[in-house]
């Protein structure tokens, strides 16, 4: 149903793109993928949600844990192409304070690299 459609690295930033419902399973998959890179020294992760249309609070809370994990290594999590309902949900849950959001991947990479 929903999955990670791609992971790439550009200029030290790891971009994880997802597709579909950002539920617990997908969030865990993202977390695991990100952890692999974090363990290898990556500190900047960008999640591209352009193909994900909706999230639930469980998925979002796992993303919060990812943010904390990155903060422990003085890194950061960013988002690009957030559908507005996902952005709204993140805002209500308070996590937008802790990460940056960008219009699109290019803008994000410009800032992060």
């Amino acid at each position, binding site marked *: 149903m929903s999955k990670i459609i791609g992971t790439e690295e550009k200029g030290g930033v790891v971009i994880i793109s997802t597709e579909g*419902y950002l539920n*617990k399973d997908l969030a865990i998959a993202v977390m695991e993928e990100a952890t692999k890179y974090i363990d290898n020294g990556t500190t900047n992760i960008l999640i591209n949600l352009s193909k994900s249309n909706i999230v639930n609070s469980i998925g*979002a809370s796992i993303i919060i844990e990812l943010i904390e994990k990155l903060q422990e290594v003085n890194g950061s999590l960013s988002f690009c192409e957030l559908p507005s309902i996902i952005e709204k949900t993140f805002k209500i849950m308070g996590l937008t304070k802790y990460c940056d959001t960008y219009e699109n991947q290019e803008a994000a990479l410009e800032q992060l690299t």
Partner: protein
Amino acid sequence: MSEANPTVELKLPIIENMELVATQTSEVVSKHMDLSEEKTSEISMALIEACINAFEHSETKSEIYIHFIISDERLTIKVIDKGKGFDTSNVKIPNIEKKLKSNERKRGWGILLIKELMDSVDFESSTDGTTLTMVKNKINNE
């Protein structure tokens, strides 16, 4: 209870991700009522959280029920589970720390989100089950 309001009734089996079936319905109903894209997605989000909550309350039961009541002024959605209910006076905005101690990391967010995304939220809970009623007005009141 006006008989005049058309109602769509869904019986949803408690299977992971089934809430998406409910959102499909809510999207169509929402468009039928000419609600904006923004309101439609807010309803979907709130409905997802309501379904997840209902799934949790249901324990051994195998389905939950969703009623979409369409009126001229608003869309009323009732999410009904037949679980054992809970003490509605205890529903607080999340206190994650206490909840995080267990593996239930998701608890509490649902209700906050529903309250923020919908115009009104009500709970009724008894030993026969819980009904969550949420309303999205067609016209903004504020």
